C-alpha cells in the first residue's frame, strides 16, 4: 500500500451560521469572510502538518487546486509544493493537480512541474485534473463545451514538452506556439508519473487505461458510497484486458483515530460537522454547466444502472454532484450519518484499520489518500490524528498487496547520496 497524506487547506474560520446565511462556499463565497491575517497562520500550520506527515513516514504528501473556494485555499498548489519540495526529503510530492485547460499556455504546467521535479529530486506525482465546473467554468470563466477539448490538447502539448528532445512547434486547435522548448526538464524520465483525478466517467477510465495513468477517485463521501464507482472502474479495466493491479487506482478517505471509539467520536465530531455542513455548502446552480459532462457520458449513464448509481455518488470532482445530493437530500447529514455511511472512518486504531482494510480490499485500490486534517481541525488535533494513524493504523494496512503487485506509477527519485545538501538526510 501507498499511504498518502492529503491536505485541502480549508479556511477554518467560517461562521457557525454559514450554511444558513450563505448560498455557496464556492464561486461567489463572500470574500469579507476571509481574514488574510488568520490565513497567514493557517497556511503555516497546514505546511507544518504536511511536513510532519513526511517526518512520520507517509509515502506522499498531496496538495490540490481550487479557485474561489473556502474549503480549499490553494489556487496555486505549485507554490505550496515548492516549499514542501524544499523542506521535506522522503515523501513523494503529489500535486493533484493542475487543471490543464486553465494554464495559458499549458506549457506552463510542463515548466513548473519540471521545476518541482528538479527541486524535489524526482519526487513529483503530476496530477492532471479537468477541474470542477466551479473552478474551471465559473471561477475561471472557461467554456464548458470546450473545456475537455482544451484539456486534451493541453495534455498532448505537455507530454510533447517532456518527451521530445528538441525544440518543436505546436500548431494546435487552441494553442499555437512556434517555439516550445521547456527549460528546465524533469528528473524522472521519460516524465513524472501522471495521475488523473476523476469522477465516474467511463471515458476517463478508458483514457487512463489507454495511456497507462493512475485513476484517482477523490470522493468526499467515503468508501461505502465509492463502491459503485470503483467496481465500475475495475469492470471496465477487465473489459479492456488490463490486469487488476490495485496501484492503478487511488481513493480518498476522511479518517479520525483516537485511543478509543468514544474518544474519536468526541474529538472528530466538530471538524467533520464543520466540513460537511459548512465547507460543502455548494450551490447546486454551479454543479452542471451544459457541456461539462459530455453527451457520451450522459448516454452511458442513461444506458447503465450501475453507471447511473456511480454518477449519483460521484464526489466533488465529478461536477460537485455530491454537493447537489446533500442540497437536495433534505439538509446536511448528521455526524452519526457521516460515520454510519462511511464519509468519515472514525474509531480506535484497530477499528479504523479494520474498516480501511475492508475499503482497500472491496474497492481494490493500492494508493490510499487520507485526510487527517479537515474542517476547522486545529493543529494539535491534526497532529494527534496523524501520529495515531502513523503509529497504530499504518502497520496494520501497509503490507496489503505487498509482494502481490508491482507499483509502476510511483516516483523514482534520485538516490539520497546524490541529493543536494539542503534536500537530503545529510
Amino acid at each position, binding site marked *: 500500500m501507498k499511504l498518502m497524506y492529503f491536505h485541502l487547506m480549508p479556511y477554518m474560520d467560517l461562521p457557525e451560521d454559514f450554511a444558513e446565511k450563505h448560498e455557496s462556499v464556492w464561486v461567489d463565497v463572500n470574500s469579507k469572510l476571509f481574514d488574510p491575517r488568520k490565513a497567514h497562520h493557517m497556511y503555516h500550520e497546514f505546511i507544518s502538518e504536511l511536513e510532519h506527515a513526511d517526518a512520520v513516514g507517509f509515502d506522499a504528501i498531496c496538495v490540490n487546486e481550487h479557485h474561489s473556494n473556502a474549503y480549499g485555499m490553494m489556487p496555486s498548489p505549485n507554490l505550496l509544493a515548492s516549499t514542501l519540495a524544499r523542506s521535506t526529503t522522503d515523501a513523494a510530492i503529489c500535486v493533484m493537480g493542475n487543471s490543464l485547460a486553465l494554464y495559458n499556455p499549458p506549457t506552463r504546467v510542463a515548466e513548473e512541474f519540471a521545476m518541482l521535479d528538479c527541486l524535489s529530486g524526482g519526487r513529483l506525482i503530476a496530477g492532471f485534473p479537468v477541474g470542477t465546473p466551479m473552478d474551471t467554468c465559473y471561477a475561471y470563466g472557461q*467554456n*464548458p*463545451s470546450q473545456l475537455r477539448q482544451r484539456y486534451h490538447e493541453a495534455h498532448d502539448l505537455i507530454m510533447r514538452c517532456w518527451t521530445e528532445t528538441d525544440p518543436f512547434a505546436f500548431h494546435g486547435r487552441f494553442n499555437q506556439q512556434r517555439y516550445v522548448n521547456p527549460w528546465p526538464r524533469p528528473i524522472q524520465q521519460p516524465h513524472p508519473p501522471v495521475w488523473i483525478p476523476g469522477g465516474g466517467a467511463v471515458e476517463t477510465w478508458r483514457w487512463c487505461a489507454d495511456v497507462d495513468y493512475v485513476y484517482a477517485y477523490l470522493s468526499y463521501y467515503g468508501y461505502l458510497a465509492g463502491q459503485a464507482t470503483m467496481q465500475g472502474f475495475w469492470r471496465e479495466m477487465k473489459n479492456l484486458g488490463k490486469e487488476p493491479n490495485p496501484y492503478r487506482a487511488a481513493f480518498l478517505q476522511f479518517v479520525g483515530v483516537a485511543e478509543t471509539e468514544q474518544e474519536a467520536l468526541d474529538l472528530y465530531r466538530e471538524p467533520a460537522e464543520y466540513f460537511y455542513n459548512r465547507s460543502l455548502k455548494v450551490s*447546486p*446552480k454551479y454543479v452542471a*454547466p*451544459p*457541456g461539462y459532462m459530455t*453527451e457520451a457520458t450522459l448516454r452511458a449513464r442513461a444506458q447503465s444502472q450501475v453507471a447511473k448509481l456511480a454518477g449519483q455518488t460521484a464526489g466533488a470532482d465529478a461536477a460537485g454532484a455530491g454537493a447537489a445530493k446533500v442540497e437536495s437530500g433534505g439538509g446536511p447529514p448528521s455526524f452519526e450519518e457521516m460515520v454510519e455511511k462511511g464519509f468519515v472512518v472514525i474509531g480506535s486504531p484497530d477499528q479504523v484499520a479494520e474498516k480501511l482494510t475492508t475499503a482497500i480490499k472491496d474497492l481494490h485500490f493500492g494508493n490510499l489518500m487520507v485526510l487527517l486534517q479537515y474542517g476547522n481541525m486545529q493543529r494539535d488535533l491534526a497532529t494527534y490524528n496523524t501520529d495515531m494513524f502513523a503509529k497504530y493504523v499504518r502497520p496494520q494496512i501497509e503490507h496489503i498487496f505487498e509482494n502481490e503487485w508491482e507499483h509502476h506509477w510511483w516516483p523514482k527519485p534520485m538516490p539520497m547520496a546524490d541529493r543536494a545538501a539542503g534536500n537530503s538526510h545529510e
Partner: protein
Amino acid sequence: MNNATLKTSFVTVNGARHRVWEKGSGKPLGFLAGIGGRPKWLPLFDRLAQHYRVVVPSLPGFPGAEPGHLLLDDNSDWICATLDLLEQSGLTGADMIGACLGGSLLADVAAHSPRSVGRLALIAPFGLYHETHPLPDFFAQTFSQQKKLLCHREHAFDEAFAPPEDENDKEEWEILRYRGMEAAARYLWPFGDRGLGKRLHRVTHDTLLIWGKEDKIIPPPYAQAFANGIKGATQTLLIDNAGHLADIDQPDTVAQALLTYFNSA
C-alpha cells in the same frame, strides 16, 4: 394554402446533419431559433406559412441537429456554419427572423455577408453586453429558474418544450435537450457578448426589432442599443406580457407584427 404540409428534410454542414422544416409556398421566410431551439412546429409558423414558404433550419447542436457545434470554436466558425446552413436550406438572400442567439448570428451574417440575407426581424438578439445593464448568468440556474427567465408565461414554455410522452423518447429527448443547451453555452459563454457592437454599423438591412417588455435575460434597453447601432432602417416593437422568447409568450402578436412588417415592402 392552409392545407400545405410540413416537410422535413436534412442538410449537411461540416459533416453534421441538420433538420430543415418547410411549409407553405411563395417567397421564402427563414427562422433561426436560439436557446432551446424549437423542438416543435409552432402555431406561429403556421400563421406565417399562410403567406410565405416558411423555412426553419436547426442550428448546429440544437434540437433537430447532430452535434456539429463541437467543431465550432470562434465567432467566425459560427458565422460560416450559419452561412452554410442558410445556403443549404435555400435561404440565401431571404428575409429572415432570428430569435435570441439566432438573432445575433443573423446580425453577424448580415454584417459579414450583406447579400446573404434580406430584411431582418430580430427577436431579443444576444451579441451585446453593457455593464450598465448586465445580463444574468442564464446557465448558473436550475431548470425551473431558467424557464422563468426565458418565458413570461410558464404555460407557454411548457407547451412549446414539452417532452415526448414515450418513455424511451423521453430519455433521448433529455439528451438532445442537453446537447442544445451545450450548443447555446458554447456560443454564449460567459456573457453572450460576441463583439457585435463593433460590427452593427455594417448591418445596412431594414430591421424589425421585437422585444418582450418582461425580458429577464436581455433587458429591453438593448433594443435601443441595437436600433442605434444598425445602419439600416429599424423599427422597434416592445411586446406586453412577453419575456425573452416573445414569439412563444405572445405568438399572435408577434405573428401579426412579422406579417405586417414583411408584407409592407
